[in-house]
């Protein structure tokens, strides 16, 4: 206890009232933006290719009626063929994947086969903010008609959905011990349980989708720090490795960007590229595009850094060869990262279709890397004001 402070405590009741009002004002001024962020609905326009929008809980009722139940956009072709699942916002602070799949939802038309798209796999994480890390709450992507606003989420689900954390998270079913935080991390809770902690329910429902619909290939779209060794790559287990390698070589030769293949480690449990492969017949691919915003040694965490990826500290570190990707004054713009996700995904689908023609997936209307670098991602977003009300979805 600190020493008495006689002067200031001459009128304790008055002082208490003043302090209480001050703190109440701070609580409201700081709390309201956080509340609004959590309840903000991002607007997605279902494009001409979307044939159905369902909830992930349709595959596992344990998710129903909660902030953990994401939308699933289904794009069915007239001709039957292979099936692909695209997931973004597994980590909601790595938004290039979300921007890429939204372009797919709003523009792609499937001719043969089916696409299942989950734009925000960890809904709760996308409505959460990373306390202590000073992120912006939203970011805007300029379009031809205005701008689209996205929530900046975080890696882990909110404690408002998943509380308490265990003292150590024990992975199901492999019993590997993981950090307590990983119970809220949808890239550590695969393959999940129908009645486990909330994020295990999410991954279980996605596993059920893959098993019941007999999905052939699955994509999990991420971003990774430039100082992280596993960045700018396709992570694939043994069974997906051949297709991943062909795709990596093709995008390098034909589209001019690097995305090497990293093997999925055998003894690191809970990750999509490991468990989807081990617990279903689906071939998993995890795509990483660099995201300088998440690196530790950067300047202020601004929307600008998130979108252009330019940072003087990283530039200096690149000169000292401490980064795992090429980095220059141009930074790593969001459009380039979205473009990589689009083109790598499309190329993997193409390689898979070539290898198994009876399960081919054929689609049109999806821009590629060069288009996105030239036009910007915003060019491909539809104006909700001009869309039919039943085509608009809020996530």
């Amino acid at each position, binding site marked *: *206890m*600190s*020493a*008495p*402070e006689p002067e*200031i*405590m001459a009128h*304790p009741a008055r*002082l*208490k009232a003043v*302090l*209480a009002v001050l*703190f109440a004002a*701070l*609580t409201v001024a*700081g*709390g309201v933006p*956080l*509340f609004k962020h*959590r309840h903000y609905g991002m607007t997605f326009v279902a494009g001409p290719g979307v044939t159905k929008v369902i909830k992930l809980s349709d595959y596992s009722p344990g998710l129903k009626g909660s902030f953990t139940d994401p939308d699933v956009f289904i794009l069915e072709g007239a001709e039957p063929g292979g099936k692909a699942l695209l997931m973004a916002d597994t980590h909601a602070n790595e938004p290039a994947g979300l921007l890429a799949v939204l372009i797919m939802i709003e523009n792609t038309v499937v001719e043969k086969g089916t696409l299942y798209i989950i734009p925000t796999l960890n809904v709760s994480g996308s409505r959460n*903010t990373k*306390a202590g890390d000073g992120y912006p709450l939203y970011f805007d992507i300029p379009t031809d008609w205005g701008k689209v606003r996205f929530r900046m989420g975080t890696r882990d689900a*909110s*404690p*408002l959905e998943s*509380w*308490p954390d265990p003292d150590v998270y024990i992975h199901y079913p492999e019993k590997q011990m993981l950090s307590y935080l990983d119970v809220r991390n949808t890239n550590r809770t695969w393959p999940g349980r129908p009645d486990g902690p909330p994020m295990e329910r999410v991954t279980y429902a996605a596993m059920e989708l893959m098993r019941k619909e007999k999905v052939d290939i699955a994509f999990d779209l991420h971003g990774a720090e430039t100082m992280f060794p596993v960045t700018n790559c396709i992570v694939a287990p043994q069974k997906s490795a051949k297709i991943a390698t062909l795709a990596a070589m093709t995008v390098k030769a034909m589209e001019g960007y690097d995305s090497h293949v990293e093997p999925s480690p055998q003894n690191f449990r809970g990750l999509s590229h490991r468990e989807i492969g081990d617990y279903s017949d689906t071939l998993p691919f995890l795509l990483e595009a660099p995201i300088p915003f998440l690196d530790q040694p950067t300047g202020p965490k601004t929307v600008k850094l998130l979108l252009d990826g330019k940072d003087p500290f990283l530039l200096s570190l690149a000169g000292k060869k401490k980064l795992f990707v090429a980095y220059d004054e141009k930074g790593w713009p969001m459009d380039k990262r979205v473009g990589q996700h689009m083109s790598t995904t499309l190329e993997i689908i193409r390689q898979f279709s070539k290898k198994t023609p009876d399960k081919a997936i054929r689609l049109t209307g999806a821009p590629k890397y060069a288009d996105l670098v030239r036009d910007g991602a915003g060019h491909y977003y539809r104006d909700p004001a001009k869309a039919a009300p039943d085509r608009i979805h809020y996530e």
Partner: protein
Amino acid sequence: MNIIMILYYVITAGLVLLLGWNFLRERKSANDLILGLLVLVPLVLRLLRVK
């Protein structure tokens, strides 16, 4: 919301009551008044399910 999560809100509410009580009874230290309010802010926002 499952029973354990409800218990966590009960524990949090209990701590809010204890801290609030101490705040009301404090007569000597302005420092402790401010610290008490600082600790209360996140607990109250959690109870209100804001963050």
